[in-house]
């Protein structure tokens, strides 16, 4: 069995009286792409924040390579090789690709002077690694000139630097065109090919279905389904399952009627 990068056991998170997560189990192995799906308010973003150490769980255990960790924090998460690409991508759009990749961890030599050539070399290597090369831009290009998909590429390149083991992609294809989404998928596959793991969070089930090896469906703070790619025939099956979870017992016809009624109000 592949090495387990991280495992969450019975994680809960409550904000006052409200439970955002009520006992979630989730694990990611080396070299796999896990797709995390769920409706708005299912607890996806809380789960990501816990994984990246921004938020501490109310209860539950976090295991890194099968060893329980205490004092989980953003720094610990980084040390464990977990990098998060947040939804807004957090890029400085007026700066070059190089400056974005090395933001906060500039390669410096004597007295803090930048090793400019080393940075360009490293940036080129990283971007080649995820298949992010082009004739129209260079490591010196301004990020603001790039398309949405290419910006996502910069964010991913930044994440895989420092040998990140697990990259969390929070809705990486939201607001992207078809070709740009294809580009992001391409980056994701390249990252997997290099033996790293990805947790891919998506709104669009078709996108997640196309890319993930395993699906985790989250519903109202609980894992409603964990399924291997091989056991799920189509994205429609997943969609149906999610709707069943959301409206238990509802027949498709009834559901449509209910929606129509809802809209009429």
């Amino acid at each position, binding site marked *: 069995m592949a090495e387990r990068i991280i495992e969450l056991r019975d994680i809960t998170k409550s904000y006052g009286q409200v439970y955002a997560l009520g006992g979630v189990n989730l694990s990611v192995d080396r070299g796999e792409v896990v797709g995390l799906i769920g409706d708005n308010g299912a607890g996806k973003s809380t789960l990501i924040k816990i994984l990246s150490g921004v938020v501490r769980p109310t209860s539950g255990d976090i295991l890194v390579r099968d060893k329980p960790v205490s004092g989980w924090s953003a720094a610990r998460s980084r040390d464990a090789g977990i990098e998060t690409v947040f939804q807004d991508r957090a890029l*400085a759009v007026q700066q070059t690709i190089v400056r974005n990749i090395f*933001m906060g961890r500039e390669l410096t030599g004597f007295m803090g002077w930048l090793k400019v050539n080393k940075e360009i070399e490293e940036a080129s290597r990283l971007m080649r690694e995820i298949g992010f090369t082009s004739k129209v831009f260079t490591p010196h290009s301004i990020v603001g000139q790039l398309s949405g998909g290419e910006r996502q590429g910069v964010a991913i390149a930044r994440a895989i630097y420092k040998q990140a083991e697990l990259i969390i992609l929070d809705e990486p294809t939201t607001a992207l065109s078809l070709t740009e989404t294809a580009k992001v998928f*391409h980056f994701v596959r390249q990252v997997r090919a290099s033996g790293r793991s990805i947790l891919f969070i998506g709104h669009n089930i078709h996108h997640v279905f196309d890319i993930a090896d395993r699906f985790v469906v989250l519903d109202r703070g609980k894992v409603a389904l964990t399924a291997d790619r091989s056991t799920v025939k189509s994205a429609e099956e997943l969609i149906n399952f999610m709707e069943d979870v959301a409206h238990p017992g509802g027949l498709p016809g009834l559901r449509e009627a209910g929606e129509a009624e809802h809209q009429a109000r």
Partner: protein
Amino acid sequence: MEPDLESPLRAHAGSARQEWKHPSDHWLRGFVLDNRASLGTLAVFIVMMAVFMVANPTVFTTWYLYSSVLTTLPVALFVVVPLVFVVTCGEIDLSFPATMGFASWVFALVVQAGYDPFIGIAAALVTGMLLGFLVGSLVVYGGLSSLIATLGMNFLLRGLIQIVNEGKSMALTSLSGSWAYKILSSQIYGIPVQIFWAVAFVVLSAMLYNRHRFGAQVRVVGDNPDSAQQMGIDVKRVRVKVFVFVGIGAAIAGTFSVMINFTWWPTAGDGYLLPVLASVFVGGTPTWGGIGTVVGGAIGAVTVSFIQTGVVAAGLSGFYVQFFNGLIIILSLLGHKWNQARYR
């Protein structure tokens, strides 16, 4: 790596696998694109000088005019350059005139007490750093608007100077024979020495801006502070640092202004507020933060100090100075707006 059959880049994978290529593969085009803001400022300066030359060729071909500009220009350069850092960082500092006055006051006191001027310079630098730290902490840790807080500090510090000195100046005639004066502020073959120090300061700062971790972090913080924070940059510390840098620059500038006149006035630095701010923006540093140009700011300072001298020397009355000041500022801003796009 496994072959990737579904790659969207597959269709032109052959060409995409090739090495990086800049859109402007000719080095000259790349240079122009990378430095368009400062080159634009340079163009404004050259056009302005050409107009002056045509207006009064005899005055503009005599060295005396340039010598007098080069005597006072360095003082402005020492503050314009750190201000480029502040504006890039998304802040503004209006307290530097008072810091100039305060730091040079300390310098004057030390020299008057009979110590070597070099000790006075060291004391002025420490004062400038402390004042910069004070102003920066007030803005950053106090969470105040830098525009208002630094304006307040400017009045406060100047007020302190005035209260203690009651408007009296200090004559420092002992400076004229000192080593510090010879090295820092005398003339070599008719060229004021301070311009060499100022140019060295500009070059060092430009490197700091473009090729040092400090400059890189200043730019990123000004561009997207949330992102910088997420990537582990201590945003507050970077912000305080730029104010300390202004304090250092203001201390050097104040000291030089005293050494030019051998006199310290309680108003020292006051007249620099608006010309220096104008120089930063004429130089091509935009107001929104994230980008800027140190060399452009320096050229902006040269432009602004030549307007004053030039208008009078061209035979117009002094009443025209402000009008031309404004004209150049507005024209430069329009030029920069056309010249550089803002990415969001």
